[in-house]
């Protein structure tokens, strides 16, 4: 196998907050192979966006601080070398964000923004003189060429009437059209690696469907690699080759979409997959408790206070490494320590969960016991009687 196009090793990111130092990313390893689409899935606050920001070189510092870790793009380390990161960012990376309304400027037309992207692409440290020259219209790239390129890209993203769209302001476009424009702009720089942070979350399902089609079409056509951040497991399945399940700043499980979604191994992935309402069934169990406080993260496995299968004396002590199973599948859970088969591990997990439930240990449960079961009717009735 060739070297991966992007590799993140042992990333640790801390944030300085009023409550203290928050250990938001705690040792994340991640690889994206050439031509591969990798999805990071997780719930809000799991650190998936912070991971993406770090890769994009857009982590706000302060309050953020990269404490540890290396980021290799085509074997070049970027976290220690800002100039290199900046260069790779402008030359090779393309980014698509969740809310096109905030990433598009409301005071420029689509055409003006696209022309600016082309004028400054592959350039770092643009001087004031050059910006001035460009404003007065003496650009290095010819207007006609730029125009043709814009039209070509808008066309490729199936935007009706591309000529007309160039003169429109973002606010005049529908949500789906704005997202298409954003993708077109990301494609302008001819990137080889796309980073997409929840690009379809704000869209309706039918429009999301169109955008996902278009995006995978571009990826295939240009042979791009992509890192796709989402909370929607179904979207991840549609777009990605492999999935990283993230919980509380750590990677819980890695594997192909089919592996992870059809047969999740990590107790967290299992809870997550089960919680999604599906056309077949819907497990209303959910996951007990809340995402932990990052300033005082749980010891051992960060999921153990919420885990139905947690083993006292082990899970709260040892931080599980990522155990490698067959076919590139990795699980960060002590259940798989001895190379157990998924079936055997599942069985152990089920027994653990039963004993935990039986002994009344409610892990991280925020609710109190429900003692009184007096019906609401009777109480209200009593209150009304008292009122009269």
């Amino acid at each position, binding site marked *: 196998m060739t070297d991966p196009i992007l590799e993140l090793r042992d990333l640790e990111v801390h944030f300085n907050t009023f409550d203290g130092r928050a250990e938001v990313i705690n040792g994340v390893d991640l690889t994206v192979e050439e031509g591969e689409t990798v999805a990071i899935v997780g*719930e809000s606050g799991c650190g998936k966006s912070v991971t993406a920001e770090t890769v994009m070189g857009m982590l706000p510092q302060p309050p953020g601080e990269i404490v540890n870790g290396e980021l290799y793009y085509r074997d070049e380390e970027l976290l220690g070398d800002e100039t290199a990161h900046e260069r790779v960012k402008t030359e090779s990376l393309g980014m698509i964000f969740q809310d096109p309304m905030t990433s598009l400027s409301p005071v420029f037309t689509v055409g003006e923004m696209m022309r600016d992207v082309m004028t400054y692409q592959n350039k770092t440290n643009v001087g004031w003189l050059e910006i001035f020259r460009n404003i007065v219209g003496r650009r290095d790239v010819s207007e006609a060429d730029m125009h043709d390129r814009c039209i070509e890209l808008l066309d490729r993203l199936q935007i009706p009437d591309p000529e007309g769209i160039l003169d429109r302001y973002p606010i005049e476009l529908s949500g789906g059209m704005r997202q298409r424009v954003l993708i077109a702009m990301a494609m302008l720089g001819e990137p080889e690696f796309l980073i997409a942070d929840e690009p379809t979350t704000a869209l309706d399902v*039918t429009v999301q469907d169109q955008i996902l089609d278009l995006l995978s079409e571009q990826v295939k056509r240009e042979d791009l690699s992509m890192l796709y951040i989402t909370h929607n497991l179904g979207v991840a399945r549609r777009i990605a080759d492999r999935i990283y399940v993230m919980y509380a700043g750590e990677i819980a499980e890695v594997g192909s979409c089919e592996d992870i979604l059809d047969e999740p191994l990590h107790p967290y992935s299992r*809870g997550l*997959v089960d919680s999604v309402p*599906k*056309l077949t069934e819907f497990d209303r*169990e959910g996951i007990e408790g809340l995402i932990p406080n990052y300033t005082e993260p749980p010891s051992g496995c960060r999921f153990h206070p919420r885990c139905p299968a947690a083993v006292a004396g082990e899970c709260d002590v040892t931080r599980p490494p990522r155990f490698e199973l067959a076919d590139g599948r990795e699980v960060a859970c002590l259940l798989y320590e001895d190379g157990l088969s998924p079936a055997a591990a599942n069985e152990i997990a089920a027994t653990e969960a039963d004993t935990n439930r039986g002994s009344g240990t409610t892990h991280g449960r925020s609710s109190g016991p429900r003692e009184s079961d007096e019906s609401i009717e009777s*109480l209200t009735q009593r209150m009304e009687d008292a009122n009269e």
Partner: protein
Amino acid sequence: MSDATDDRTDDPLLRVQNLEKYYPITGGLLKKKVGEVKAVDGVSFELGRGETLAIVGESGCGKTTLGKTVARLHEPTGGSILFDGQDIGTLSERELKPVRREIQVVYQDPTSSLNPRKRIKDIVAEPMTVHDIGTKAQRRERVVELLRRVDLPEDFRYRYPSELSGGQQQRVAIARALTLNPSLLVLDEPTSALDVSVQAKVISLLEELQDDLGLSYLMITHDLSLTKNIADRIGVMYLGKLMEKAPAASLFDDPQNPYTEQLLSAIPIVEESEAAYKPDRISIQGETPDPSDPPSGCSFHPRCHRTVDECSRTEPELVDVGPDHTSRCVHHDDTD
């Protein structure tokens, strides 16, 4: 009115007939009416006691307006809302006050629906304060009981909403809705601001409450997969109109309307096994048009994969296509 009162128990709790909510579009110096947005355009449905009816649709289809009009947060511009046999569509704010005890709304975003400057105990007790029910001690007792009912620790009473997580806030909102023992809850996307693991627990709480208290739910949502699991009947809405209305099982097993098919086709499935419920992949065109200038004929025809010439000319009516199953499409007339 008189013939509706003879046998109350067989009546549905809620019967909405030809409900309309039009918003005028004004223009010019004199604010003259230049057009209107038909946010809800002739919607009819019934909701039985203890039943859940889900209204599904994409943004801008009018589903939220429908829910809020039924809860009389908006005044309908036409049609009737028979609640427990009484038309509440035309009542004044004063006449509505007793009705408000019976119909409560749970909103999508709990951060916005709970007053950030009030403690949980005051938020949950507010309905009793407004309707002047109970003594101070009784109200306190009721708040504790309600918090317990929604699985929150009772000491949360003293907290402010910002000190709670999203799921906990939504439980508070549910507790507030239950304070006066309503019979109908309008649930406006009650879980779409929450993570799935939290959503699952809130949904199971809602179902448990429905079983225990015999509540009826009018659930507004964009999540088709969710409705499959929790609704008894489902209405699919597009540009202010119901396109298809059916019991949950028949809607998913045998969708009749092309729009429903497209929605189903667009759901990104999570598990392999779900594929069985999905129609063959349909390529979907365009986005919801501007509701102030809807297409002629069938409002869905510009995006429809089964559109024919007739679609732009005739507006199809809702017709019966199965038991308790109606749909709106010109193709239904061919087969009849």
